[in-house]
């Protein structure tokens, strides 16, 4: 881009941008600075905190991985095929983002409770949704799924269709084309969708708390400590949880960093 003269208007925009950044950083920094290292260390040793962080991490990962099996092929379909009511289908995919999450939890509770068909069937296989990790997984998956589907769809849409056609022409079956061409080329979009879905899942409070207060996930624990003991007791666990999540994101980003392929 050619360098252009900075107009006063652009300076105003920069100031506004700075305010936005400050708005994000200030509360987090304030909380982090308010928390001493001994407090943090003590919180990290608390078995209830450890358990809840562990539970939150694995349920959100399980939600992401389980749903990705269906969501990624579905995303390809949305990127590549035209079908009747496609706009409606795309809108339905976005519904979990726009509805209030406690309402989503209530809706899920309705179909997963012990009185429901799904609840009874699952119980027969020893799976309890209400008040169990399975319920947490479902609640997390419900509210976070759109992030994966939308990012993966954009990833697939960015793969030139000609490249898939060329693969078909070379005698590859559609299955082989999907796994050897479409999926690797859309990989960046998909990974970013997986990370987004996971992040959204592990931060979920509203839907999870309706289905399973216990076993307790970290967002619920933070809320519980705040309610029972006040701000000072909720801060260290918040900081700890944020640090653990950030560490995971960084590791995932590094592990999935691949060479940028120039698509000709």
């Amino acid at each position, binding site marked *: 881009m050619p360098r252009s003269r900075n107009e006063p208007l652009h300076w105003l925009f920069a100031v506004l941008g700075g305010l936005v950044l400050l708005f994000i950083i200030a509360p987090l920094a304030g909380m982090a600075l308010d928390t001493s290292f001994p407090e943090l260390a003590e919180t990290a040793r608390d078995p209830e905190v450890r358990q809840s962080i562990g539970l939150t991490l694995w349920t959100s990962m399980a939600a992401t991985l389980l749903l990705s099996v269906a969501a990624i092929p579905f995303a390809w379909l949305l990127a590549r095929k035209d079908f009747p009511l496609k706009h409606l289908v795309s809108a339905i995919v976005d519904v979990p983002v726009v509805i209030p999450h406690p309402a989503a939890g209530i809706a899920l509770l309705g179909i997963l409770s012990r009185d429901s068909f799904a609840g009874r069937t699952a119980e027969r296989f020893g799976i309890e949704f209400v008040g169990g990790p399975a319920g947490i997984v479902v609640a997390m998956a419900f509210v976070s799924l759109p992030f994966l589907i939308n990012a993966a769809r954009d990833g697939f849409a960015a793969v030139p269709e000609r*490249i898939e056609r*060329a693969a078909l*022409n*070379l*005698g590859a079956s559609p299955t082989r084309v999907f796994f050897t*061409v479409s999926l690797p080329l859309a990989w960046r979009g998909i990974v970013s969708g997986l990370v987004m879905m996971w992040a959204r899942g592990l931060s979920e409070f509203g839907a999870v708390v309706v289905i399973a207060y216990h076993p307790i996930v970290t967002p619920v624990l933070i809320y519980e400590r705040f309610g029972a003991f006040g701000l000072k007791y909720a801060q260290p666990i918040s900081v700890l949880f944020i640090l653990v999540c950030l560490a995971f994101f960084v590791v995932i980003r590094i592990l999935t960093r691949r060479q940028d392929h120039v698509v000709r």
Partner: protein
Amino acid sequence: MLSVDALQKRLGDFAMRDVSFDVAEGDYFVLLGASGVGKTVLLETLAGLVVPDGGRIVLDGADITATRIQKRRMALVYQDQALFPHMSVKRNIAYGLPGSSWSRRRAHETVEALAATVGASGLLHRHPGTLSGGEAQRVALARALATQPRCLLLDEPLAFLDARARGRMRGLLRALNRQGHTMVHVTHDYEEALSLASHVGIMENGRVVQTGTPTEVFHHPKSEFVAQFVGIRNFFHGTLEPTPEDGIHRFITHGLALHIATNAQPGPGSLILRSEDITLSQTRTDMSAQNSFLGTVVDIAPSARGVEVIIDIGVEVAALVTERAVEHFHLHCGQKIWAGFKATAARFIEE
């Protein structure tokens, strides 16, 4: 071998109305058409990537109109090659090797042989993003050949290449054709057709309006459109002699020696000459035109841009003149007249 019969396809604004042509085994068939007449769609239809609305495609006597893409053995090379950007050149070429029964070593040897065929041996470990246009095109050809196709479908294979790469690619395509590969090549460039085709077809308005050998189509265009489109009425196969005098080469065709100014390599090739560059005179003139031949008028035909006069000077040449010139010379069939052109007006295309 390949027979296309009344193929139809409607895609948005574009319509392929009634495309029919035949390609014999070992042919080099070039389909010429302006940009946007649906040449790519036609190739994709032949390859099975696009389902036609009507018509038939017959390959080796079998109707393959509804055959699965993977079973057609029609290898399509896209204009932009569509190489897999996340795979090495080697894996790109190996992608289309048929069957899983191939051992790793066999596959490796086959890939090396294919790369050698197209002159891409040194590129096997590179990634497509690092290749030049000509290199990518050669890799795409090798990848297509790996499928052992009955027919190669080429979409403007010379379009994005510079002059030198273009010359080499032409040589490669011709060599592949000589090895027995049947080619269907679409382009908007009549020079490609002239230098490569054993047969050409002209596409207009979603139809193939004329097919035949280059000589038949270029010398005897069936319609004004074809004449306009092919643009060139005068072309001759012959040989450029090696020793130039003052940069002027002798080009020998049908026992005639034409003088042309060119930097091209001597050898076999085609000479093209625009009909508007040919001048007529009643006496041998002493102009800068080095080429002057006494010939006989064999045809006079009005055309959209003037009057086309066909003169037999040993070969038939077409001269485009004005109505006034026709009156001035009292032109009529059987008349003797001098036809001339400048050495710089002729263009030589190497084979």
